[in-house]
């Protein structure tokens, strides 16, 4: 694993100078799909010499329907638990063959990352393999029809955590994925949201320079699974950061850094009640969610570097 000191400040990529080339198009993602936005933007940064790997999941399902292949760059579907290890194999194989100037990127959803793929991801970071791992988090197993994952937040109604008289939907809180990854002493890890695209692009660009494993956890809305209008995908992904229910941060040089520290949070109730998956929440549920958020921010503000 390389030292983060060696990371060069990359040339800034913005909407103005970003390549017009598309690497992920003609796919069959739902209208307003946030995951496909995360993949599309990342590939524009990592470029045509990207070797991309996707486990079973939405992007695999919508991008590789034989004979209509949606990736302009090299791309492959991996086993569900094996995206990190297969992508590692691609990266290590390319190194062994003496290939030059390429970036291996694994893209996986929240279930493929925080649940079934976590072990392989841990191994990938431990070995120090040279690749970027992007988790697009739409907070449930969407490809199979909205089942609860380890990153589904408290209160969420999914098809396996139905909300009724006896249960509030999901009873658990989101796994602390970002800190789990950081605990490996990875050279670079970050959280991002497609609602803050420039921040996301900057982070992908930074991760691209790392010689070793890097990790980005990007929040990606899912109108189909969340019960939201397809034209609010970006807005919702921005708002979640503004409410403090998600956060923008980085881990480098062994330190956590908050990139955005809102003075005032936007209303959680206003944000969640727009989403079908939270329609059933009671005031008590909102209290639990608010308390959880406040505890998290208290800790982050106390121990992490602030912007």
């Amino acid at each position, binding site marked *: 694993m390389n030292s983060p000191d060696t990371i060069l400040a990359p040339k800034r990529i913005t909407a103005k100078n970003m390549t017009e080339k598309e690497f992920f198009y003609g796919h069959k993602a739902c209208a307003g799909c946030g995951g496909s936005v995360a993949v599309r933007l990342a590939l524009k940064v990592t470029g*045509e*010499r990207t*070797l991309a*790997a996707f486990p079973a999941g939405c992007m*695999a*399902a919508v*991008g*590789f*329907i*034989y004979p209509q*292949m*949606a*990736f*302009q*760059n*090299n*791309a*492959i*579907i*991996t*086993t569900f*638990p*094996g995206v*990190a*290890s*297969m*992508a*590692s*194999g*691609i*990266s*290590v*194989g*390319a*190194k*062994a*063959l003496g*290939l030059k100037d*390429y970036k291996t990127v694994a893209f996986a959803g929240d279930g493929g990352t925080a649940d079934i793929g976590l*072990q*392989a991801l*841990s*191994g990938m970071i*431990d*070995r120090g*393999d040279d690749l970027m791992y992007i988790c697009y988090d739409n907070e449930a197993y969407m490809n199979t029809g909205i089942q609860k994952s380890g990153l589904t937040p408290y209160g969420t109604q999914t098809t396996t955590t139905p909300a009724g008289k006896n249960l509030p939907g999901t009873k658990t809180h989101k796994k602390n994925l970002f800190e789990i990854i950081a605990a490996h002493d990875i050279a670079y890890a970050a959280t991002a949201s497609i609602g803050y695209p420039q921040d996301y692009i900057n982070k992908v660009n930074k991760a691209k320079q790392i010689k070793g494993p890097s990790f980005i956890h990007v929040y990606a809305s899912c109108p189909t699974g969340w019960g939201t209008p397809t034209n609010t995908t970006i807005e919702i992904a921005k708002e979640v950061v503004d409410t403090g229910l998600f956060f923008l941060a980085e881990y480098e040089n062994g330190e956590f850094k908050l990139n955005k520290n809102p003075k005032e949070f936007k209303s959680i109730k206003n944000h969640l009640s727009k989403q079908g998956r939270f329609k059933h929440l009671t005031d008590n549920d909102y209290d639990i969610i608010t308390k959880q958020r406040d505890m998290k921010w208290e800790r982050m503000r106390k121990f992490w570097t602030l912007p």
Partner: protein
Amino acid sequence: MKKNKLFISGDEAIAIGAKLARPHVIAAYTITPQTIAVERLSDMVESGELKAEYMHVESEHSAISACMGASAIGARTFTASSSQGLLYMAEGLHYCSGGRYPVVMMNANRSVALPWSIYGDQRDSLGLLDSGWIQVYVEDAQEALDMMIQAYKIAENPKVLTPMMVNIDGFILTHTYEMVNIPEQEKVDAFLPPFETVNKMSFENPKNMGFSSQPIDNTEFKYQQDRAMFDAIPLIKETDEEWAKTFGRRYHGMVENYKCDNADYIIVTLGSVCGTTRIIVDELREQGLKVGMLKIRYMRPFPEKEIQEITANAKAIGVLEKNISFGYEGTVFTNVNSSISKTKARPFMKNFVGGFGGRDITKQEIRQMFATLKEQTEPSKTVEYFNLNVATDE
């Protein structure tokens, strides 16, 4: 002068064979009794004797996933496993053959839990017969080493592009020592050219791989996979012939016919127990009994034609295996019996099942098996558990 003969274990023979094949990437997770093979390979990487990337994966599932990834970029790959580890890989085994990644694997045949046992039988690999891998079973360390190199040549052939599993009996072969001829690297290089494939990612011609198919075309993919396995049959024979020409050792391709010509009683078996069976065949032949052994080398593709031809005139055939498909019979027997039932011959058929979890199969037991074939004992009972120490109500 370079030593060309070494006193080594089966695991070490596997490691040397793998090294001589010059893999780019090795990804393996440790499991008894495979461990020594990966330890030796690690030593070779450390010393620089082997220029390969050794990936310390955190599981067998990741071992096979990493090998597939490396293969998908055009690298030659090796992995090794056994028993529970092989089963943990099971998803990847199907994935690998379906993706047509010619990964080569050593499997140290070991019992499958429960009950736990680190010792040998063949229920691990035979339980995965349908995973689309070429499966070869070896009799000794020399064959293990030689097959490691042959395996790459067969698996990587563009007509085949199918992964291959070299099965070696746990402990009986992995941990016992014998004199093994070590092929010269230059000769191996001439025999086994570098891995070339179009089934890989490239920057000039980017590919989307591992895609999904729809009901309208899935059958055709599976059909091609099946045909590739059949296409391997002549190649397996040719490769063995070429090996014999270069290195002077011959394994006779799909099966070995040991004194089966004119034999009335034949035992069909596989793996290390072939060694013991050979001795008994010699012994009984000296006594004037017309017996023979048919050594199955490949379980997939299956040597149907060879079995039909070699057993055509036998009066009785016993299939000896360290395996059972609970609720029916041994899988090797099912396959052999299916081949023979397609001919006009109707020999007496018996399935000798035993040797589980490392229990020794003795010479006396094999003598008894031939006696059973000769006497055609209990014709209505297909499966016979030999050396069974529990009371049965049968």
